[in-house]
């Protein structure tokens, strides 16, 4: 078993143990919510993420024989910490009720358990997100490669037009990330920023006196950003995990590598960049 598998297994077990502890502590007589008793972990997680990024040495994508390193260990860690944190936050948050959605949990211990689970996910989510943010601050090119270009609409139309069977279209030379992914990234970025800013206000209310008007703004903003995040999350899971065409990339989120043949077809622009060539786009009669 490789080092990455060991670390992943340990981290997963720790997360499951945290969730189990969160659920269990909700039924302990006299125990407060984790948001009350362990608020400090919420403040610690972002700084821990930044510190971890500071001591992380990244590896750039590189062609290694018949495969391409797409994600280094840091990318895998920040993706799964952010992703799993988001998934658990969405499930627990929606179950607790928000906007017009009623609570699915009734009252008492199930509600407290969901809040405690939300807490554990908050810590993981904050660590992963700030780890990503700090890593990005250290290499702004990683941020730039996530942003849509002027090709966004044209590439997306051709890419998904071909998938839908419009044979006269030609496959665009997508770079490391599809242009459609880059547009979705903007939605994820904005919703993440709003969720974190408003969420931290809500957490602060557990520790200090926060003005009522601020919470009256933060709570609905948190809820609306949740809807945006849910939309992104569902689309991301569908296009990045369910569609068979994306399975090589899904696999690379565990192994780090994608096959070179796959990358040449799906990410021709990216491979051209890695090989130091000009990106050429053969446009069909579209």
């Amino acid at each position, binding site marked *: 078993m490789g080092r990455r598998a060991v670390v992943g297994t340990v981290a997963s077990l720790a997360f499951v143990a945290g969730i189990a502890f969160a659920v269990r502590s909700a039924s302990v007589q006299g125990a407060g*919510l984790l948001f009350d008793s362990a608020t400090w972990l919420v403040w610690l997680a972002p*700084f821990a993420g*930044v510190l971890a990024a*500071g001591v992380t*040495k990244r590896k750039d994508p590189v062609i290694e024989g018949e495969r391409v390193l797409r994600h280094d260990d840091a990318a895998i860690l920040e993706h799964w910490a952010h992703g799993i944190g988001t998934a658990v936050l969405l499930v627990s948050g929606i179950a607790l009720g928000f906007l017009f959605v009623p609570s699915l949990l009734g009252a008492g211990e199930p509600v407290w358990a969901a809040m405690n689970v939300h807490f554990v996910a908050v810590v993981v989510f904050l660590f992963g997100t700030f780890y990503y943010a700090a890593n990005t601050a250290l290499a702004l090119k990683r941020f730039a490669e996530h942003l849509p270009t002027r090709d966004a609409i044209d590439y997306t139309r051709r890419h998904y037009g071909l998938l839908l069977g419009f044979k006269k279209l030609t496959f665009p030379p997508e770079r490391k990330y599809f242009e459609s992914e880059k547009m979705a990234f903007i939605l994820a970025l904005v919703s993440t920023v709003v969720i974190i800013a408003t969420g931290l206000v809500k957490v602060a209310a557990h520790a200090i006196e926060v003005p009522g*008007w601020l919470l009256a703004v933060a709570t609905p903003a948190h809820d609306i950003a949740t809807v945006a995040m849910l939309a992104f999350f569902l689309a991301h899971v569908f296009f990045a995990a369910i569609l068979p065409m994306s399975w090589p990339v899904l696999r690379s989120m565990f192994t780090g590598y994608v096959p070179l043949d796959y990358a040449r077809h799906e990410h021709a622009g990216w491979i051209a960049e890695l090989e130091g060539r000009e990106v050429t786009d053969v446009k069909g009669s579209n």
Partner: protein
Amino acid sequence: MVDKDNTVVPAAEATGLSRREFVTGIGGTGVGLVLGGLLVKGFMLPDEVYAIPASEGYLLVDTKKCAGCESCMLACSLVHYGRENTSLARIQITQDPFGTFPQDLQMDQCRQCPYPACVDACPTGAMHADAATGARMVDERKCIGCERCVNACPFTPSRVQWNHEDKHAQKCDLCKDTPYWNHEGGADGMQACVAICPMKAISFTKEIPAQSEQGYQVNLRDAHWGHIGFPTDDAGKIVPQPAPAPAPAAK
């Protein structure tokens, strides 16, 4: 291939601090501050003292007088939310169709406890004592819906309810915050349930009642009660005095 992320931060060129050193410093300082603060709070600061002012008003009831019409519940909902819904009432009238008088009916009003477990249980300060009147009330904007206050209330049914429509805890505020009533409420004003009760079975006092079931259950049966033929004492031994006959009309 290893990133060369040792780009010098322009603003910090004078210090020669690299971007990586800057990020690591921010992270390390933050971790140190949080853990240091935790240690200071845990070992060096004294325990927090929990003190809360007493309420300046209390509702008293006479269940033997209550007719169970639920006007108080409807009025409570109306003045607070602008709609009549017994599920939104903060005073509860519960009736047992199989019970016998006087155990067939219960009036469950908030007791504005001197030690309010609901306030103590609230994690965000949403449940608080009003600074002006001491009435225990909910700042709905701060409520996170954990319902610990509902659970913490030592009485059954809980004197704190979950507002299922607007999704927040609610409880009797002695009508301090009544946007749909053009009367001044609160400990120095009127209370809708007291004002509306056709049986005059609810009253208001500024004196802290004895902290017992009897402290909040009082005899509100006055002479008028006797005039309509009901006993005015709990044992029913005082013979009701009929109302004096009306004077003959002058011719």
